[in-house]
């Protein structure tokens, strides 16, 4: 963001904007930036709260009135956090994986059937909006393909673009299904359910492990699973146990 700000300003267009990592912005010194303490992924702070978002925008726009810079101002308000106890309960109880008969394809297919009604409900609550669909395949097609790769111990090394899009589709599908009920959610709780309780999350982490051990493609792990999920998994062993039966 700092780079775009610099280049646009150099071409005669005024800029202002949000900084999420103060240290990065302070180092690059874009002309005007408002640092906010919000989580990565949430530059306006709080979803569904127009008044909150307007306060952030107003503070950033006012930086346009400054007569000299660079300007890096700190926004004083934190985004409110949602306690897990106050968030809507997870609508799904995820089944433990069964023994030898439970292939990845079977497990992913079963989980899709469980989550589909919740995803439908979620779309209706969001007036049809969904982030699923960048892979160009249906969820069923993606999961069958991903499951077969895992069952056959193969990596999609010739289809990396599809693979990345498919796992992103899978993640947002789960997020949307898990947040089908109206209410405010604790984002970390949703992340933890996805990575450590769902078969889909286990599948993504399994791909992460297999790419990590690949001689030429280990760098792909950086775009598969977040550091927090892989490190927490090692520390807690939560997700590892789900794969021991396969």
């Amino acid at each position, binding site marked *: 963001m700092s780079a775009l700000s610099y280049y646009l300003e150099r071409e005669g*267009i005024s800029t202002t904007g949000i900084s999420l990592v103060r240290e*990065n912005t302070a180092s690059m010194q874009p002309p005007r930036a408002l640092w906010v303490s919000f989580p990565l*992924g949430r530059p306006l*702070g709080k979803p569904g709260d127009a008044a909150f978002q307007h306060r952030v925008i107003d503070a950033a726009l006012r930086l346009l009135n400054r007569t000299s810079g660079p300007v890096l101002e700190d926004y004083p308000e934190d985004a409110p956090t949602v306690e897990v106890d106050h968030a809507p309960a997870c609508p799904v109880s995820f089944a433990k994986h069964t023994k030898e008969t439970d292939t990845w394809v079977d497990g992913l297919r079963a989980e899709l059937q469980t989550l589909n009604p919740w995803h439908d409900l979620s779309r209706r609550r969001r007036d049809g909006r969904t982030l699923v669909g*960048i892979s160009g395949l249906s969820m069923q097609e993606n999961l069958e393909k991903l499951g077969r790769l895992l069952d056959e111990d193969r990596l999609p090394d010739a289809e990396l673009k599809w693979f990345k899009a498919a796992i992103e589709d899978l993640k*947002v599908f789960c997020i949307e299904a898990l947040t089908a009920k109206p209410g405010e959610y604790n984002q970390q709780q949703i992340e933890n359910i996805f990575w450590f309780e769902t078969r889909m999350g286990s599948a993504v982490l399994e791909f992460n492990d297999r790419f990590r051990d690949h001689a030429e493609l280990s760098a792909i792990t950086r775009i598969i699973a977040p550091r927090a999920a892989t490190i927490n998994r090692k520390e807690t062993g939560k997700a590892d146990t789900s794969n021991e039966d396969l």
Partner: protein
Amino acid sequence: MVRLKDLPDYEREHLLSKSEPPLGPPAWTPLAQEISRSRIALITTAGLHFRGDPTFQFADATFRPISGDENADNLVMSHSSVNFDKTGFAEDVNLVFPINRFQELAASGAIGSLAAIHYSFMGAGLAPSTYETTASQVAGMLKQDKVDAVFLTPV
């Protein structure tokens, strides 16, 4: 919260490793007129685009235009980074791309007008200087649209 002191060591070190020096001598363009008379465009580095548009590559300095006439609820995200929250954007497009908020500002007269076209980049995996060419292209299109100022959002 992205206060580095609150983050685990591995996360703090990763984010600090992304700090780069300034790209050149300071650039500064004063706003030509009052905000209430200015035409404003939104630019995000969140890797947003409409579902039928080409997805962003793993490292990609190109951009996607986002027409103000289209329904922003149809935007999707193909960002290569996995280290940020997506639950909020799934709930509300304005959390990342505050188009409805700016439409409200234009309607109330707080800003002069909203650009016809906004732009989305994907900010990950490349040196900041890699964006010079495409940023310059966008600057040219913004000038054609008589845009005075840009509001930038990362993810």
